[in-house]
């Protein structure tokens, strides 16, 4: 045995687990992030999975990845490139190596690099490391499959197939050793996960320990192991949460706060389906979920639910938003509360169903017939999905309007540590109900003169019977009207109502007083843009960031912020939709642009490079 390797302190580290879709990479990654978060590290995760459910084993198209970023200080993204790459087979190494830093440590299962595996992964020779240009000194080459079998065969409780499913835990064990993670925490996690299958818990725990011991005994040919300490702890109780789950939690909290039934009409569509899955589990909180016959019905039934007095929600992704447009517009003219969640993915059409883009912004803002103003909110991180969903509900109920909540595959599937809120901390929600004085006098389109909001009367109340319809109506009586002046007035009322919604000012971070360059973004790119800004500031540049969560209406200070700095760049994952929208709203605004539409998150180093060009 050689001497104990030194332990180095790291500020942050990125680990990418990769293998076949069925190799349990997500579980390994989740455990690693949770265990790290438990000791107080900041975490951010991102799964990168293929559209195929089970592509042929060992094939290039079947590789799925799960990236975990942990840090001593707050981390804002899952990280550009990884410090450690786990590749459970040849195809994983082939496709995932490009996400590794030049000096990254690579952990591979040599048993999955046989001639057949190499052929499936389209290697030309059997010296795959040479072929990829990987320095063998950086590789922890371990016969994982063989060792897992050796560990588990004596137990006699698992068949061969089940044994192979534990390979991910061996890799996790090596990673835990590498980063000095307490295996006991992993054991607790596994015991809880497999509480009903103690044999699996036992097997997985044995394999994790075997992986850890393998690392410790061989020192896994690495020069050092690492420790990520925790700085600047914000005390509190935390959980790991994905954006989709946080969205659902926001809906549940809002319904409870408003004292309303929660209704979700939805149709399965990647990457939004987890919202339907998650909420369907929580019927004990009173949630009604209806898996509808199509996207149209998902939205239309929600409009009906809103009419009947529920907090009504429909969830979808881009192509589904197209189908919902007409029913959303009914909610616009009927002035009914409705939350429309669009988890954006690559488009157009079916596009890249599992990948992430910000390309539905203009559709959300304008993709309906007629003058159809509607609030749009874009969540900025997995945990911010909670607040954004909550505020979308509040806005819908208090201003009687449909609201679009934009998230995307990146933050919907990504996760981060979330400090648990209490219901009491959340702002009050007061649905704009018709007051009792209106009994027997109620007409549906009389408005509050300041907010332009009509009054909501729920079926079942005597003296408030009324009709809502898709036809233009008289603002006073609610009767059908084609009077030119009335229509002109109603169009303007609906517009004014949305513009009158109060939203918080956009915050400027970084060098807010003297920035040479203001970076402007919206929604899910916050983490990357923030990290890029910090990089630039470390290099001595004066840079600030304004990340928009509220898109329509825009914050009151938008013009002031955007016109304040010598140079402004709008960076977004589309061809300039937010920039175009800002240029409609802000006279004379003519910023630089940075656009990438790869279906992948921004890379911080690419942002830094592009912004430095602008700063020149």
């Amino acid at each position, binding site marked *: 045995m050689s001497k104990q390797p030194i332990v180095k302190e790291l500020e942050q580290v990125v680990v990418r687990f990769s293998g076949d879709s069925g190799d349990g990479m997500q579980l390994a990654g989740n455990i690693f992030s949770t265990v790290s978060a438990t000791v107080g590290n900041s975490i951010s995760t991102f799964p990168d999975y293929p559209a195929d459910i089970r592509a042929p084993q060992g094939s290039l198209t079947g590789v799925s990845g799960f990236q975990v970023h942990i840090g001593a200080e707050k981390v804002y993204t899952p990280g550009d490139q990884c410090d450690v790459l786990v590749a459970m087979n040849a195809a994983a190494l082939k496709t995932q190596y490009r996400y590794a830093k030049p000096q990254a440590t690579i952990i591979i299962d040599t048993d999955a690099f046989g001639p057949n595996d190499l052929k499936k992964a389209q290697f030309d020779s059997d010296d795959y490391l040479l072929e990829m240009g990987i320095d063998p000194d950086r590789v922890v080459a371990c016969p994982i499959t063989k060792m897992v079998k050796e560990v588990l065969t004596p137990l006699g409780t698992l068949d061969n197939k089940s044994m192979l499913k534990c390979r991910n835990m061996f890799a996790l064990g090596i990673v835990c050793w590498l980063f000095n993670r307490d295996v006991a925490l992993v054991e607790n996690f596994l015991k809880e996960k497999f509480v009903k299958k103690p044999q699996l818990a036992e097997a997985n725990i044995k394999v994790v320990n075997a992986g850890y011991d393998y690392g410790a005994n061989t020192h896994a040919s690495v020069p050092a192991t690492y420790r990520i300490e925790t700085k600047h*702890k914000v005390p509190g109780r935390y959980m790991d949460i994905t954006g989709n789950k946080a969205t659902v939690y926001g809906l549940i909290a809002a319904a409870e706060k408003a004292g309303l039934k929660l209704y979700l009409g939805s149709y399965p569509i990647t990457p939004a389906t987890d919202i339907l899955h998650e909420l369907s589990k929580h019927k004990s909180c009173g949630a009604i979920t209806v898996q509808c016959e199509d996207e149209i019905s998902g939205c239309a039934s929600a409009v009906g639910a809103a009419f009947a007095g529920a907090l009504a929600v429909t969830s979808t992704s881009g192509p589904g938003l197209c189908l919902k447009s007409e029913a959303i517009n009914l909610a616009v003219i009927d002035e009914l509360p409705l939350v429309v969640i669009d988890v954006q993915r690559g488009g157009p059409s079916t596009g890249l169903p599992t990948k992430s883009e910000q390309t539905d912004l203009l559709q959300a803002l304008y993709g309906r017939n007629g003058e159809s103003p509607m609030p749009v909110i874009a969540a900025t991180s997995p945990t911010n999905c909670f607040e954004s969903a909550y505020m979308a509900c509040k806005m819908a109920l208090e201003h009687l309007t449909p609201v679009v909540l934009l998230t995307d595959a990146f933050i919907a599937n990504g996760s981060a540590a979330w400090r648990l809120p209490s219901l009491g901390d959340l702002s009050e929600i007061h649905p704009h109900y018709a007051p009792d004085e209106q009994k027997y006098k109620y007409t549906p389109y009389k408005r509050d003169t300041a907010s332009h909001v009509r009054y909501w009367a729920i079926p079942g109340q005597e003296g408030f*019977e009324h009709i809502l319809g898709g036809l233009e109506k008289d603002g006073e009586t609610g009767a059908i009207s084609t009077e030119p002046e009335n229509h002109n007035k109603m169009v303007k009322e609906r517009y004014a109502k949305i513009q009158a919604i109060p939203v918080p000012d956009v915050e400027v971070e970084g060098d807010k007083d003297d920035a040479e360059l203001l970076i402007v973004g919206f929604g899910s790119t916050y983490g990357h843009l923030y990290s890029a800004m910090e990089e630039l500031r470390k290099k001595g540049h004066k840079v600030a960031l304004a990340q928009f969560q509220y898109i329509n209406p825009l914050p009151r200070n938008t013009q002031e912020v955007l016109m304040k700095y010598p140079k402004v760049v709008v960076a977004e994952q589309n061809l300039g939709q937010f920039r175009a929208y800002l240029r409609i709203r802000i006279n004379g605004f003519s910023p630089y642009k940075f656009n990438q539409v790869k279906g992948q998150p921004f890379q911080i180093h690419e942002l830094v490079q592009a912004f430095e060009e602008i700063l020149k």
Partner: protein
Amino acid sequence: MKQYTFQDYKKGQPRWCPGCGDHFFLASLHKAMAELGVPPYQTAVISGIGCSSRLPYYMNTYAMQTIHGRAAAIATGAKVVNPALAVWQISGDGDGLAIGGNHFIHAMRRNIDLNMILLNNRIYGLTKGQYSPTSPRGFVSKSSPYGTVEDPFRPAELCFGARGRFFARSVANDGPETVEILKAAYQHKGASVCEILQHCVIFNNGAYDPIYTKEGRKKNAIYVRHGEKLVFGENNEYGLMQEGFGLKVVKIGENGVTLDDILVHDAHCEDNTLQLKLAMMDNEHGYPIALGVIRDVEAPTYDVCVNEQIDEVKAKKSYHCFEELLETNDIWEVKE
């Protein structure tokens, strides 16, 4: 309990063409509602788009006129959120069976407690005269000047194919029968379809001429009544018998046929075979057109089941609100 009259459900002055079947139907609906006695404020009438979908504007109830074809979907959301509401969904043949066909069949399949009215005039009236999915093959209209080359839907067949459990039919100007089937549709718990046969006086007048008068119905229609013999004719001299896989019309007293040989209608029979045979009868093939409640079979309803399931899960699970839900996760504490 307050007694309601048809006036309590009435509102406004209908703007349909004089003689339109919609006028007759609206009067029957007001009357049926008054006889059922459900308060206007506990009633929601939801329609799509088309001439007949204007109907909610003439109801003094909660109401929505929505978008083309989606009334069944919108009504589904309203009913599942508040099962205590009596929900009436009004559609025409284009609204319900063309653009809204998907929602129509899935409302049937789910068996949600909606009273689904299908006002079938076999034409698009509001867009001024195009053939509809119930227009007969060869039908000449503005969009089919040389006749259609496609077969129509038969609403009953579609309803049965989608596992519908209530189907009734009436002629719009046959007020008493219309009122009866509407009341039966309300009393049936589950999706109930009432097909109302009616003329569009402008674009498809005469579509149902043989049964559009009282005299005509005596000869060319049969009123089906659960538990009663299937007889028709001016003096009930004709009846229906089973023959092979089908039905046949017989004259009682001829060829040795007696009243005992005549089929007794069973609307509650789970097996819909003979009910479908009744519903599919037409004058062209020498049969009377069946009117009345053809099928009426009880089953669990979607709106009730959804809410019962919530109660069951509430009883089983330990968390019932947001803060309790949070505690079901893996939580760690970060201390100072």
